């Protein structure tokens, strides 16, 4: 929670020495509160003041870095309960569970599939982030060997899972240089597991048995000066896990309850054996605050839809998703195929391209950069207007790809057709339908003529 200028003033030396280049301590305090000055600029500030201010300035939920290199990812740092209030910050990290007791080929197949789980959608790279590796053998040496093998095959972040500190030490010896997330400290092993995480400076999952014991455990871990924590409430059914996720997020944001000021991890893979239900659980936890979601199946049919949900939920509501401005081939268009234009708001693109596809009329769809706005909004804002559209058409090279000069514009901007005609004298401007649902009929009629 931010301190006011007056709160900060009380903590300053009040000598008005001016060495900070601000005439009075009060004025300096006001600048600090407004983020225009730094505390270090005051040479006489006490250590207690530094701590108090650092504490007050700390975000309500810590940001934790897991893994390293190309596939490292951040989790936490969330600021709101509802995405429309601002936005959700760090997209949910999807994890795939494997085990050191799996047969060699099964393990290899899963690790390879998880590593390959990467898709480009609307200009973003969507991917599985983490491999959760469970020690079921109970054998530290074997576990370390499996972890090394996995690290050799995949650059995904790793989460070694064992509550036995000796086994975890073996794991840390094997892959500790890859910033793995250690799973897990429990009421039984916190002292030793916490000490290991602290010594090696690694992120650590704290696993409770419900939210009350999680609160206690997290507070103890904070007392050990562990800062990179991830919280597992230990619940393993939908109703309890959802309630725990809400309690933790609300606790951190509304009650400023520090032990809950960390990202969370949940395990749909341990809540059910039914693949569809596991997908549904993962989907609900993505929407309701989970930082990391561990699932069992790396297959694309499961992971791709979940990634799309993460992309949707974590989109900044203030900043609509935009697709690249260029000509898209819908079907296999040729020189006689219709040419249409619309704006680069991702939904506009998806809906229009979907309707063209459904019409089965191969077409060229030109997407004009309208800063992610839909047709009417973009037109009103001057982003989808004749000179911009004309410039796009003239620089797109579409004239070389088709042997006709007919350009279809959205029905909602029928009023610009005259002016666009002047800007594009070689082209005949045709006014298309207002609603995307009517595109199919329109195109079929167009080619029939």
């Amino acid at each position, binding site marked *: 929670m931010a301190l006011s200028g007056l709160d900060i003033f009380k903590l300053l030396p009040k000598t008005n020495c001016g060495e900070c280049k601000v005439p009075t301590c009060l004025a300096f305090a006001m600048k600090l509160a407004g983020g225009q000055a730094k505390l270090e600029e005051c040479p006489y500030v006490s250590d207690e003041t530094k701590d108090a201010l650092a504490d007050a300035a700390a975000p309500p939920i810590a940001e934790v870095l897991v893994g390293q290199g190309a596939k490292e990812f951040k989790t936490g740092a969330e600021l709101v309960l509802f995405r429309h209030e601002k936005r959700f910050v760090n997209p949910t990290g999807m994890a795939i569970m494997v085990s050191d007791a799996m047969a060699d080929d099964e393990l290899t197949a899963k690790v390879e599939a998880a590593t390959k789980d990467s898709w480009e959608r609307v200009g973003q790279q969507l991917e599985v982030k983490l491999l959760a590796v469970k020690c079921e053998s109970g054998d530290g040496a074997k576990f370390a060997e499996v972890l090394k093998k996995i690290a050799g095959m995949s650059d995904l972040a790793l989460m070694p899972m064992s509550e036995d500190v000796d086994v975890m030490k073996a794991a840390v010896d094997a892959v500790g240089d890859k910033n793995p997330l250690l799973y897990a400290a429990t009421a039984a092993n916190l002292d030793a597991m916490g000490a290991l995480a602290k010594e090696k400076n690694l992120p650590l999952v704290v696993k409770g048995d419900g939210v009350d014991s999680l609160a*206690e455990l997290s507070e103890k871990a904070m007392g050990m000066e562990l800062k990179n924590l991830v919280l597992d409430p230990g619940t393993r059914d939908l109703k309890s896990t959802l309630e725990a996720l809400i309690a933790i997020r609300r606790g951190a944001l509304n009650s400023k309850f520090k032990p809950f000021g960390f990202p969370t991890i949940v395990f749909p893979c341990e809540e059910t054996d039914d693949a569809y239900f596991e997908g549904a659980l993962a989907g609900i936890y993505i929407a309701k605050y989970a930082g990391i979601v561990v699932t069992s199946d790396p297959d694309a049919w499961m992971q791709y839809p979940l990634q799309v949900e993460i992309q949707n939920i974590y989109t900044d509501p203030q900043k609509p998703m935009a697709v690249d401005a260029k000509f898209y081939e819908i079907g296999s268009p040729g020189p006689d195929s219709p040419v249409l234009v619309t704006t680069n708001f991702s939904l506009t693109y998806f809906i229009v391209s979907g309707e063209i596809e459904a019409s089965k009329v191969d077409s060229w769809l030109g997407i004009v950069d309208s800063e992610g706005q839909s047709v009417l909004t973009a037109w009103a804002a001057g982003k989808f207007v004749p000179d911009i559209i004309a410039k796009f058409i003239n620089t797109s090279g579409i004239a070389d790809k088709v042997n006709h000069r007919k350009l279809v514009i959205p029905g909602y901007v029928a009023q610009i057709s005259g002016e666009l005609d002047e800007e594009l004298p070689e082209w005949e401007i045709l006014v298309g339908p207002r609603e995307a649902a009517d595109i199919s009929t329109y195109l079929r009629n167009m080619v029939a003529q």
Partner: protein
Amino acid sequence: MAFEMPKETSESKIREVTLGTGDVKVGGENILPFYLFEGEMPNRPLIAVEVYDDNPQEWSPVVAEPLKDVLADPVAWAKKAQDEWGADLIALRLKSTDPKGDDKPAEEAAQTAKAVAEAVSIPVIVYGSEDVDKDGDVLKAAAVATEGKNVVLGPANEDNYKTVGAAALGYKQTVAAKTPIDVNLAKQLNILLSNLGVDVGNILVDPTTGALGYGLEYTYSVMERFKIAALRQDDSMTQMPLIADVGVEAWKAKEAKAPAADEPAWGDENKRGVLWEILTASSLLVAGADVVIMRHPDAIKTVRKVIDSLMG
């Protein structure tokens, strides 16, 4: 320091709306969806199963295959949905009346609505083809033909709400009011309908559904904002139960339908499309949907399990 869960209770609640003529009710909750630790949800969210009257031809085989015995027979389809898939409601779409398609007369479709409403014991939603002008006639005829059944007629929108609202009033039916993903437009239509004389307790709101990947986040946030306004600001015009029209939108998505042969990077299409529908439905349930309209039997089964588990 022990943790005390901050509870947020509300004096306000979502209106409880009776569907059909039995004891099926929807709404009534005084909490955000499934926040059962701080209040009540006296009625479970309901699954309405889609039934079409035009023998759909262009559906993905993934969803057409399990329905192949009933696609051409809306009455058999509705019965199967009720008896085998445990539908709470039937959502009958009179798509045959679409002027861009078969353009069947309103009267003929209304007879189908009557036959379906009589064949099942669960309440029925009757949606037109969503052609603004034709729907006025179609829904009026359907209201007459199903008089006494208290069906949900819809969607009423800003251009045809007078006809649809009057039909509902005249024949004692309920109305689904649809607006394009905007809280204020939805409130405005609710006000217009109530000015017409429709009881606010007989209105459901369909805020327009964006499927996973196709605007889900907009519907998600509109539903959350609806519930927050209803419960925390006691805003009467946002206290209607919400409908999420999931099946039709989810199965429009390219990612739900494309065969793995065309899109190998997306995986097995038989499961992918079903999950697409499941994720759209379950995320909108936690956002605030009181009714989800669904299509694929496996998706319906899974979402039922979700609701069972959340209600505990």
